[in-house]
């Protein structure tokens, strides 16, 4: 580690946990006072328990999930838990700000639109669950839900978490690093799942873009913005400039990259820089 890194809290030692929920790995790095304390382990368990509850409600893979029953008309929205209303409202807002590039109503595969709020749920759930970690005093955490990350440092001047951005053309290596104290990083792309992200307006996969990473205050919106930008293909950077984000990193299909804001030392970006 270079001497440039700001000093850490407590002993600075990082304790890690991993569990699999919702078909993806949930990874936690903790450091500081509760990195290895009972309170720290309990908070982690509470995070996992809440994510499991979220999965029971929202999983589109479970026939009996509330979201599937709602979609089949077996439940009315009034009969659903408040979380469902919250997530559907987020989906509505996301569709609105992205001009339909993001939608929780998937394009019809069998003649009918299907309700699938998965694109909202992951970021929202991880951000929401991270509150239990944020409640640990004098403790820094970095929580990843399948590659989408919430960072927090207890001290505003604590050591930043170093988030590696995976190379979409070679997922075994990194293409960039971004230091984050408190904030979120979400990446959308198709490196691990094939073309699973389609433009809901056309049903077609986006072209020209390989991955979009968004750095923002909350993972709820970082995740939505990354997905909505990715789906817009070559318009990803232009659209992201309209969003209230800290920054973004785009890898294009041809391997070139774009950073937002463009550069700290250049004059035009200094005025753009709002953090």
């Amino acid at each position, binding site marked *: 580690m270079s001497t440039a890194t700001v000093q850490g809290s407590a002993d600075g030692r990082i304790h890690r946990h991993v569990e699999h929920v919702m078909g993806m*790995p949930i990874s936690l790095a903790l450091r500081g006072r509760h990195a290895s304390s009972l309170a720290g382990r309990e908070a982690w368990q509470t995070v996992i328990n809440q994510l499991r509850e979220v999965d029971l409600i929202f999983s589109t893979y479970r026939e009996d999930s509330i979201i599937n029953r709602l979609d089949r008309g077996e439940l009315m929205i009034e009969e659903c838990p408040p979380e469902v209303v919250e997530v559907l409202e987020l989906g509505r807002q996301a569709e609105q700000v992205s001009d339909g590039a993001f939608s929780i109503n998937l394009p019809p595969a069998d003649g009918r639109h299907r309700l699938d709020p998965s694109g909202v749920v992951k970021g929202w759930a991880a951000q929401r669950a991270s509150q239990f970690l944020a409640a640990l005093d004098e403790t820094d955490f970095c929580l990843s839900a399948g590659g989408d990350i919430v960072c927090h440092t207890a001290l505003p001047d604590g050591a930043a978490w170093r988030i590696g951005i*995976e190379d979409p053309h070679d997922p075994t290596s*990194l293409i960039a690093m971004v230091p984050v104290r408190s904030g979120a990083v979400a990446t959308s792309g198709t490196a691990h799942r094939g073309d699973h992200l389609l433009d809901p307006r056309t049903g077609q996969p986006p072209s020209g873009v390989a991955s979009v990473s968004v750095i923002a205050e909350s993972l709820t919106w970082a995740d939505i913005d990354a997905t909505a930008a990715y789906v817009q293909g070559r318009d990803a950077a232009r659209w992201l400039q309209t969003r209230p984000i800290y920054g973004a990193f785009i890898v294009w299909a041809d391997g070139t990259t774009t950073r937002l804001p463009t550069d700290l030392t250049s004059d035009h970006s200094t005025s753009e820089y709002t953090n």
Partner: protein
Amino acid sequence: MRRIVIWLASTVTIVVLLFGYHTSTDKTSSAATASSTSGPTASAGSQPSSPPSSSSSGSSGEGSSKITTYTGSVAQTRWGPVQVKITVRSGKIIKVTVLQQPNGNQKDAEINSYALPILIDETVQTQSANIDMVSGATVTSEGYAQSLQGALDEAGI
């Protein structure tokens, strides 16, 4: 006093990241190709009259354990001019010396310490990067064992 130290450390982080672009262009590694086409020149600061000079203890023996120092050009940051010297051994920064630093006011220092500027460093390499977590396109549980994040969690560092 503590705040000042922290502030300096933050400043150094910033400049090292900026400086990373210079060093990446000196190498023919994959990091250079991974960089954006606008990266290296855009981050060179506003005083191109003093390009980074490198003084090596030998010829450019990349990959060896030679110690090389690089003196950066003066970078105009939003906090004022900054210049650093870094010492590199085996491709890793082992020492950073601040030669010139902005005498910013307290307000600047506070802004700086609360939120790191979003500096996206495109010079990282998987093996040498000191990374806490990996952000990537949705990692599934099936793919996790082979993923970088899996390796990080396994290493437990």
